[in-house]
């Protein structure tokens, strides 16, 4: 099903900050139309890994390949120019700008106004709203609304729609569902799925196994900076994955923890308990 040459590949990538080794011999592949879930506990090195892909950090050693050819990113712009779009946890970074304006920062559509070239606000709003609605977010219909007034899920959705609109080939999402409630998270997961169907490669970072299983085709578990497991959908059960992520913690403890967590998520925030 997947093409033979991965759109993005890491070969033996290592990263250390001075004396601290953060990543060891990371080798991963991600193909077009496929979601790679990067799982791992806090501090495992997930963010460091995606910062390398986003051009924020340079690997200490190892190679990054795109379409089978080695590439080097000196700065985030280089990665972006090659079609790698990285979204951080809170989506839109310009909360006080309108949807239309923030969508087009740096690539503003323009029109003639007498002798002047001006920002085409109407067109920007129309395109931005359409791009988001194409992902099924019909609640957004006014491009003049401020990004900061949208829900976390809507912001993530706009950011994803933006990346797709501008031709991203690889979409990297760093814990996009971590701060979201169940409904909002489901919303974002649906959009991740839609993005994959449009032929993009998605790298989805999470430590919520349920979310990973909902969209992932391919999974990699990172423990203390090394790939502890690399497997495809259906190869492992949820229990096995959680066990792996915990790196040896007993299954029973985990189950109990997970149950409690899921309940909190579905019913109410823990702080609102009865008295």
């Amino acid at each position, binding site marked *: 099903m997947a093409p033979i040459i991965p759109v993005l590949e890491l070969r033996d990538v290592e990263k250390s900050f001075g004396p601290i080794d953060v990543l060891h011999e990371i080798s991963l592949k991600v193909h077009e139309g496929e979601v790679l879930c990067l799982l791992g506990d806090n501090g495992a090195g997930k963010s460091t890994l995606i910062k390398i892909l986003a051009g924020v950090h340079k690997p200490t050693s190892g190679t990054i390949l795109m379409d089978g050819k080695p590439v080097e990113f000196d700065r985030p712009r280089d990665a972006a120019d090659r079609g790698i779009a990285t979204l951080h946890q809170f989506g839109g970074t310009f909360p*006080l*700008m309108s949807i239309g*304006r923030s969508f087009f920062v*740096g690539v503003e559509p323009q029109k003639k106004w007498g002798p002047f070239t001006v920002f085409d606000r109407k067109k920007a709003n129309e395109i931005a709203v359409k791009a988001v609605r194409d992902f099924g977010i019909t609640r957004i219909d*006014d491009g003049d*609304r401020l990004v900061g007034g949208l829900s976390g899920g809507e912001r993530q959705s706009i950011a994803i729609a933006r990346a797709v609109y501008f031709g991203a080939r690889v979409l990297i999402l760093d814990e996009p569902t971590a701060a979201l409630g169940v409904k909002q998270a489901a919303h974002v997961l649906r959009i991740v799925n839609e993005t994959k169907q449009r032929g993009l490669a998605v790298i989805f970072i999470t430590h919520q196994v349920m979310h990973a299983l909902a969209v992932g085709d391919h999974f990699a578990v990172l423990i203390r900076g090394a790939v502890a497991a690399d497997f495809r959908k259906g190869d492992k059960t949820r229990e096995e994955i959680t066990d792996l992520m915990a790196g040896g913690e007993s299954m029973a403890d985990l189950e109990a923890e997970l149950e409690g967590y899921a309940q909190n998520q579905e019913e109410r925030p823990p702080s609102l308990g009865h008295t």
Partner: protein
Amino acid sequence: MNEFSHFLRRPEAATIISLAAVIVFYVIFGGVDLGKLFGAASWVNFAANLGIVAIPVGLLMISGELDISIGAMIPAGSMTTAILSGYYGYPIAIGMLGALSVGILVGFVNGILTVRTTVPSLIITLGSLVAMQGIILSASVLLTGNASVPLTAPDWAKFAFGQLIGGSHQVIIIWWLILTAIFAFVLHRTSYGNWIFAMGGDRDSARNLGIPTSKVTIILFILSASAASFVGMCQAILFNSAQVSGGMNFIFNAIVSVVVGGVLLTGGFGSVIGIFFGTLTFAIVNQGIYFTQIDRNWSNLIIGAVLLIAVGMNETFREKALSYVPKKMKA
């Protein structure tokens, strides 16, 4: 009603309401004759001189930076004009060019230091403020032996920069209106304006999206420093002399005008129209007090109150703008 709630979501809403409130306050408690107040030149002249500096200072603030060196750039502009064209007798065009060049140079240095170091621009421009004060004083005393230099400008320069229209209104008012229109156009209608907002929202993201943040920052610093030296130049031509002192009030006055005008101190939000009305509000409070029976010493208290009330309203309206959901479905 719908129109009104739309108005409240705009950055300039609070300052327009404050301006109206101040006028009403002066009429009720100060017995101001509105005809006299609106016919008077003093507050309009005051607003124009302040407004030309406040707008670029406001743009810098929207982009996330601060420039307080303007306090020294006003005497720098007037002294440069007076020394070159008054003391040395060069043509006035040379003096004017000199004044603007000093503005461009200091703005450039402020900008370069801001983008090349991690020192906050408040500290950098505090440094250039103090340094420029020293330079102006030393240069003036060294070159002319005096701290005050006379200047006689030719008619054309008087007409364009130092005229009193109708014997009372400074011609700089027209410059203020023109510059307000130009800056409003650039900030709200062009891509450059979008870049400025994006930079104030998140500089790193803006840079990663391909915006030349360093270049824009340097240009904005050049604009604020040269706007201040332009005002100084106009004052020298109007008053036929220049002094090394003065201008320090502009720092405080411009920042208050900008903040009352709805610009977010931390950047990313604001409007030129808001800064325009913020300046008018400040000028009416500061100069309008002379038309009241209120002791003028109270004017600072009123400015303080207006500042707090306007900032409070700005916060509220910004919340409103953020939580705004269009209700098209409702009848």
